[in-house]
C-alpha cells in the first residue's frame, strides 16, 4: 500500500506530465535525460523522509483505529469472542448468584511470597521521586531504569533481616496489594471479581498484606502486621453479625497463616494474647491454595544457586552474558545477594527431612509417577483417572530423595556405590584464608573459598536431611538468621515446652493445630504438571566472582518419558509445589484426631487437574492447575464461593483427588 502511494506521490505528479511531452518530441535522447531530472526530484524524498512518512502513516492509522475502538460500544469484544469460541460459560460468580448465593462469611486473603506489592517510604538519594511508588509489583519500571538502586532498596539488612539504615520499604495495603502482580497478570483479581458478584465488597473482604521478605515473626516486630490482621478479623466478625471468617491463604501465605493461628492464641509478649478460644470463635474455614506445607525443593535451588529450571537454561545459553561482568552487571550475583537477605525464602526449605522427602534410595513418589503423561494432560478431566495406571512397567525408579546430586551417574547409582567425602569433617579444617576476593559484589560464596566448594561437591548426594547442612555450609549467615525464625524437623513430643517458641509455629510437623473442632481445613492445589523435585548439579568452570555451582542442564533422562530433563527431576504437582508437600498434611498428618490435630479438625483435599487453555482467547485458562494461574480456575473459585456463602466441606463433595497422594502418604512412616 504505502509503496504504491509513495511512488505515485513523488514523481508522477509533475515530472510525468512534462516528461511525456519530451518523450514525444525526441524520444531517444531524452529517455536518458529524464531520469536525471527525476533523480533530482526524488532527492527531496530521501530514505529519511520515507521513514518519516511511513512512521507518520502508521501512527495516523493507529490513532484512527484507536479512536474507532474507543468509540465502539464496550460490548463488542465480547460478541467477537463469543462468535469465535461459542457462548462463554458464565463465570462462577454469575452462575452462583443465579442459584441464589449471597454474602455470608467475611473473607480474608493471605497472599504468598513474591505476589504482594511493596512500596518505598524512605530511601537513599538514588531513589528520589519514588516515594510511595511500587518497587515490587506493577510495571517494574524502576528495575530497568536503575537496577542497582532497586536491588539495594529491595535488600534487607544481612545481619538482622530487618530494614537497612535509611531505607523503609513497606507492603502495599488493601486489595490492590495483590490483585494484579503486573499489569494484566492477575493473582487475586478474578477471585475478587467473582466474590463481588454475589455481593462481597470492601467491608467483607480483607487482604492481609504483609512484607513477604521478612520472617513471619518480624512482620509483627516491625509492622505489627499480625496484630493488624487480628484486629481486622475481629472487626469483620463483629460488624457482620458474628459470622466467622473464611481465610484463603495462597502459597507461602499458608505457612504465614499457620504461624498466625499459633501466634494469636499464644500469650503476649511473644503472641497476640487472643486466648485458646480465638480460632474457634473467629475462623470458619482455612482454604489453603497451593500450600507448600512441607516446603518446596525449588527453594533449595533458589538458595543454592539462584536458579530454577527456567533460569538454568538461560544461564547455559548465555554464560558469558549473565555470569560474567559484562557491562558490570553480574545479574546473578546481585540477585543472589538480594534474595539471601530475605528470611522468608528459608521458610520454604523442605521440612520433615528424610522421613517425608525420602532417603538415598527411597522416596514416597519413587515408582509411581509417570512423567510422560504429557500427552494425556491435554485431554482434560475425562481421562485423568487413567493417568496413574499407564505404563508403570517401563518406568524406572527415580531417586527423588536425593534432592541435590553432583553428576548424573551419582543421581542414578545405588547409594552403596557412591563415594562420599564427609562434609562436616572437612568443614572443620576448612580455612578461612580464602577471603582474598576482590569482587565488588560480596556474596557469601566468596568467604568460603575453593577448598570448601570442592568439599561440598565431593559429598555427592544430599537428601532433605543433609541439605540443611549443605546450606549451613555454603551460606552460614542466612541460615543462622533463618534458623532463629524457622525450623524444619519433626517433633517427637509436641508437649515439650520448647515448641512454644515462635520458630516452630510455621512448621506443621512441630505444632498442634488450635483447639477448634468446628473449623475446617482445605488443601486445594493443581495436579498434572511436572514439578521440580530434585536436581543434578555441577561445579561451574568459571571460578572468579561467580556462583560456583549450577544445574547441569546437559543431563537428560534416557527415554522420552523420563522424569529427568535438563538436570531436573520432576514429580507431580502444580509447577512449583509438589503434591507431596501440598497434600500430605491434609491426607495424613491432620486427617482425623492425630497428635498434630488434637481436636480433630476435619480436612479436605481438593485437587484440580491441570488443563492448559484451549486457545489464546482464554488467556491463562479457566481450568489451569498451575501455582498462580489456579487462582483463575473456575472450579476452585466455585468451591471458595460456596464455602464463603455457608457450605461445609461435606456439602462441597468432600475429597476430590486425582493424584496418588493417599498411596504416597501410606508409604511415609510418620508417627501420628
Amino acid at each position, binding site marked *: 500500500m504505502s509503496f504504491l502511494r509513495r511512488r505515485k506521490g513523488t514523481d508522477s505528479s509533475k515530472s510525468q506530465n512534462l516528461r511525456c511531452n519530451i518523450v*514525444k518530441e525526441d524520444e531517444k535522447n531524452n529517455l536518458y535525460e529524464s531520469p536525471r531530472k527525476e533523480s533530482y526530484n526524488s532527492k527531496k524524498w530521501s530514505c529519511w523522509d520515507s521513514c518519516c512518512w511511513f512512521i507518520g502513516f502508521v*501512527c495516523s492509522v493507529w490513532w484512527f483505529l484507536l479512536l474507532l475502538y474507543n468509540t465502539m460500544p464496550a460490548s463488542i469484544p465480547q460478541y467477537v469472542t463469543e462468535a469465535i469460541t461459542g457462548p462463554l460459560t458464565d463465570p462462577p460468580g454469575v452462575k452462583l448468584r443465579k442459584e441464589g448465593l449471597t454474602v455470608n462469611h467475611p473473607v480474608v486473603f493471605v497472599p504468598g511470597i513474591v505476589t504482594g506489592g511493596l512500596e518505598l517510604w524512605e530511601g537513599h538519594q538514588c531513589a528520589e521521586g519514588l516515594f510511595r511508588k511500587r518497587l515490587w509489583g506493577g510495571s517494574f519500571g524502576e528495575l530497568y531504569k536503575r537496577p542497582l538502586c532497586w536491588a539495594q532498596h529491595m535488600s534487607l539488612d544481612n545481619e538482622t533481616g530487618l530494614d537497612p539504615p535509611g531505607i523503609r520499604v513497606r507492603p502495599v495495603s488493601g486489595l490492590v496489594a495483590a490483585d494484579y502482580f503486573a499489569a494484566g497478570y492477575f493473582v487475586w483479581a478474578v477471585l475478587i471479581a467473582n466474590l463481588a458478584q454475589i455481593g462481597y465488597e470492601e467491608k467483607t473482604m480483607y487482604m492481609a498484606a504483609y512484607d513477604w521478605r521478612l520472617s513471619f515473626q518480624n512482620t509483627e516486630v516491625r509492622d505489627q502486621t499480625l496484630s493488624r490482621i487480628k484486629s481486622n478479623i475481629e472487626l469483620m466478625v463483629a460488624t457482620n453479625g458474628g459470622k466467622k471468617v473464611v481465610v484463603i491463604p495462597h502459597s507461602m501465605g499458608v505457612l504465614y497463616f499457620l504461624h498466625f493461628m499459633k501466634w494469636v492464641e499464644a500469650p503476649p509478649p511473644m503472641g497476640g494474647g487472643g486466648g485458646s478460644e480465638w480460632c474457634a470463635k473467629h475462623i470458619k474455614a482455612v482454604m489453603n491454595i497451593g500450600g507448600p506445607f512441607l516446603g518446596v525443593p525449588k527453594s533449595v535451588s533458589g538458595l543454592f544457586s539462584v536458579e530454577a529450571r527456567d533460569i538454568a537454561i538461560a544461564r547455559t545459553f548465555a554464560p558469558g552474558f549473565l555470569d560474567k561482568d559484562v557491562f558490570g552487571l553480574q545479574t546473578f550475583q546481585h540477585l543472589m545477594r538480594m534474595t539471601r537477605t530475605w528470611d522468608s525464602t528459608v521458610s520454604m526449605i523442605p521440612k520433615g527431612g528424610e522421613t517425608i522427602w525420602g532417603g538415598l534410595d527411597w522416596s514416597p513418589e519413587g515408582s509411581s509417577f509417570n512423567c510422560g503423561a504429557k500427552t494425556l494432560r491435554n485431554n482434560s478431566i475425562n481421562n485423568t483417572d487413567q493417568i496413574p495406571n499407564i505404563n508403570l512397567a517401563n518406568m524406572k525408579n527415580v531417586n527423588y530423595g536425593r534432592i541435590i546430586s553432583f553428576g548424573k551417574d551419582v543421581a542414578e547409582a545405588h547409594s552403596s556405590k557412591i563415594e562420599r567425602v564427609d562434609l562436616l569433617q572437612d568443614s572443620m579444617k576448612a580455612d578461612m584464608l580464602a577471603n582474598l576476593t576482590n569482587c565488588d559484589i560480596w556474596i557469601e560464596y566468596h568467604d568460603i573459598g575453593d577448598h570448601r566448594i570442592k568439599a561440598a561437591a565431593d559429598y555427592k548426594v544430599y537428601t532433605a536431611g543433609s541439605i540443611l547442612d549443605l546450606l549451613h555450609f555454603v551460606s552460614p549467615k542466612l541460615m543462622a538468621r533463618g534458623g532463629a525464625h524457622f525450623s524444619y524437623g519433626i517433633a517427637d513430643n509436641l508437649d515439650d515446652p520448647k515448641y512454644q517458641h515462635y520458630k516452630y509455629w510455621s512448621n506443621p510437623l512441630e505444632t498442634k493445630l488450635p483447639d477448634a473442632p468446628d473449623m475446617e481445613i482445605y488443601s486445594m492445589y493443581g495436579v498434572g504438571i511436572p514439578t521440580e523435585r530434585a536436581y543434578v548439579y555441577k561445579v561451574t568452570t568459571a571460578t572468579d566472582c561467580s556462583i560456583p555451582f549450577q544445574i547441569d542442564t546437559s543431563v537428560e533422562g534416557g527415554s522420552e518419558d523420563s522424569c529427568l530433563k535438563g538436570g531436573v527431576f520432576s514429580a507431580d504437582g502444580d509447577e512449583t509445589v509438589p503434591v507431596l508437600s501440598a497434600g500430605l498434611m491434609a491426607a495424613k498428618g491432620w486427617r482425623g484426631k492425630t497428635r498434630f490435630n488434637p481436636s480433630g479438625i476435619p480436612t479436605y483435599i481438593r485437587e484440580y487437574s491441570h488443563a492448559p487453555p484451549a486457545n489464546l482467547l482464554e488467556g491463562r485458562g479457566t481450568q489451569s492447575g498451575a501455582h498462580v494461574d489456579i487462582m483463575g480456575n473456575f472450579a476452585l473459585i466455585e468451591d471458595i464461593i460456596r464455602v464463603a456463602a455457608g457450605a461445609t466441606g461435606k456439602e462441597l463433595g468432600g475429597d476430590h483427588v486425582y493424584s496418588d497422594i493417599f498411596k504416597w502418604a501410606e508409604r511415609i512412616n510418620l508417627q501420628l
Partner: protein
Amino acid sequence: MASVLRFRKLCYVESAVKCTSVGYESFEIDEKLDEKEEDVLSANNFALEINKKRKQPKRQPKEWRCLDSCCWIIGYLCTTWWLLLFCYHCLPVTLLRVPELPGPGVRLKREGLTALHPVVLVPGIVTGGLELWEGRPCADGLFRKRLWGGGSFTQIFKRPLCLLEHLSLHYETGLDPQGIRVRAVPGLVGADYFAPGYFVWAVLIENLAKIGYEGKNLHMAAYDWRLSFQNTEIRDHALTRLKSKIELMYISNGYKKVVAVPHSMGVIYFLHFLKWVETPPPMGGGGGPGWCAKHIKAVMNIGPAFLGVPKAVSNLFSAEGKDVSYIRAMAPGVFDSEILGLQTFERVMRMARTWDSIVSLLPKGGEVIWGNMDRSPEEGHVCDFSKKSHSKTSLTTNNVNNSDVKRGFLVKDLANYGRIISFGKPASVLHSSKLPTADSKEFSRTSTSENFNNFSCGEAWTEYDEMSRQSIQNVAADKAYTTTTLLDLLRFVAPKMMRRAEAHFSHGIAENLDDPKYNHYKYWSNPLETKLSDAPDMEIYCMYGVGIQTERSYVYKLSPNSRCKSIPYQIDNSVHGEDGSCLKGGVYFADGDESVPVLSAGFMCAKGWRGRTRFNPSGIATYIREYRHKPPTSLMEGRGIESGSHVDIMGNFALIEDIMRVAAGATGDEIGGDQIHSDIIKMSERINLGL
C-alpha cells in the same frame, strides 16, 4: 544507501512504464505520421489533449502530496519526540529533576523530630475517590475502577450519562439504588491525589513520612462522602472501622494517643464520629464516655466548615457556584437547553440532590450566626482583596490596627451578608422594612394549592419540574431570604430532598443541650447542638486560610429561559457593586479561604468552644491558626507553598509544620497558640450566642 538507489531505479522504471501507457496511442499515431512534419503539431495537440484528459486523475496525486506531507510531519514529530523521550530516559534520573523545595519534613527531621502519635487523616467532600463494585451493563469493565477522583476522569467524557447514573444515590432512601454499588476507595490512595498531579493529602503524607510515619501509624479514614454520616455506618460500617483502627493504632504504637487531621467536610464528619463513638449502641459505637479522652490527643481541623458554607446553598438551589454561573451566562444555549440532549445542569443538579452530605454543609445557626435582614457579623468588611493580597507580610503585623481605621471610612456600600439569597440588586441593598417579608405560611399555602401541577417533562427530572410557574414566581417575589428562611425556601423547592436529609442533619441552635432529644444522631454533626466530649486534655485546632474572596451571599434572578426542563433560577451575574464593593457578578464576597468563610471556620474555636462553655463543658483547649494566602510567586512553586485556599492549603508549609510538630508531641501552646490575621474575634463578639 542501497535502498535509496533502488528507490530511484524503481521510480525510473515506473515513470517509463507510465509514459508508454499514457502516450501509447500517441506513439502509434506518431509512427504513422512520422514523415509528415506538419502532423507533428496536430499530434502534439492530441497529446496535449490527452494530457488535459489526464489532468483529472493527476489532480489526485496533488492531494496525495498534501496527505503525504501531513504523514511526513506527523512521522517527523513522532520520531523526534521518541528520540527526545529516549534521551530523557537515558539521562540519570537525578539530573533532570526539578530542584524540589525542601519541605518542612526534612528540616524537622534534622531538628530531631520523629514519629510519635499515630495520625488519622479524614478527607472532605468531593476529594475522596469512589470505585465501582456493581453496576448496570453500561458500566461494563469498570469493576473496581475509579468513577470519581484519582484517575483521569476519562470515563466522564466517554459515558457521561452512565457515570451520572452510577454516582447518584436513591432519591428516597439516600442509599444505593437497585443494582448499583459504588464504594469509597480505602487507604491512603483514596485521597492523596484528586486527579493526576493535583495533590490533596500527598504533600502532607510525604512530609510526615520524612520523620518516620508509614502505614502502621498513618491512616486515611476514607468514607463515602455522598452519604449522610450515619448512613456510612449503616451501609459500610465506616465509623466502626475508624474506631477499631484508632484503637489498634493506639495499642500497637505503644499507647500513644491519636492526632486526627480532618479537612473540610471531614471536620463535621469527625465531630459526628466523636459523638457516635461515646454513645451506647445501637445508635452509637459504645466506646463509653472516656473513649475520646483515652484515644485522642488533638483534632487539627483544616479549613473546617463547622457552621456550613453559603456555597452549598447556591449549589442546591441552582447547581452553580461563582465560576459556573459565568459559564451559564456566557453560553446559555449550550448548557440550558436540550441541544444534544445534554441538559448538563439539570442532570448535575439531580445527581447532587441525591447526596445527603451536601445538606450537611448548609449554613447552621440561622440568623443568630449568619445575620438577619439588616445585620451581619462581618458587616463593614472591606473587599479590597486585590490590593490587600499583594501587600505582603510586612503589613500583617500592623494590619489589624490599620484596617480598623480604614474600615471606618471605606464603608460605602453596606453589604447585607445576612440576606443569603435576594432576588434582584435592590432587594439586596434596601432596608428590610421596605421589603416584603418571607413567610413560611405562604409557602405551605402555595405548595398545597399548586400540587396538582406535576407534569413531568424530560428524563432529567428535577424537583423544579413539579412546581408550577405560579409558585416559582412566588418564590422570586419574596425578594430576600436569610439563613433561617432559606431552609423554608429549600423545603419548598425540593421537599423530598429536604425531608430525606433532615432526618440526618439539623441546622439550628440548641436552647437546652441537656434535652434528651439531642441524643439523636441528627444533631451530632452540628457543633451548636452538641456538647464536646469530656476530654479536658484533648486539643482542638481550627486551621484555615484567610485573604481570599469567599462567596457569602447571592443575588438571584429568574432564568429568562422558562421552558419546563430548565432550572428556573440563576445567579444574576450582571449585578456589580462600585469599586471596592463586595458585590461582584451577583455574589457578595467575604473573607475566607475561597470556599469556607472565616465566620464558619473560626467561630467555634474563637467563641463557641473557647474556655468552658455549654458547648464545651470540660473546657477543651482551642487554638486558631490562620494562614494568610499568598499566591505562588513563580511557576516552580506549582500551587504554592503559602497558599491559603481551601484545598491548596494542604500544601502550605507552615500548616504542615504545625501538624508535624503536634504529631511529634508538641502542644498548642508550644507551637505558638493563636495566630490570627482576620477579624474573627471582632466578628464573634457581634454574635449574640448564649454560652
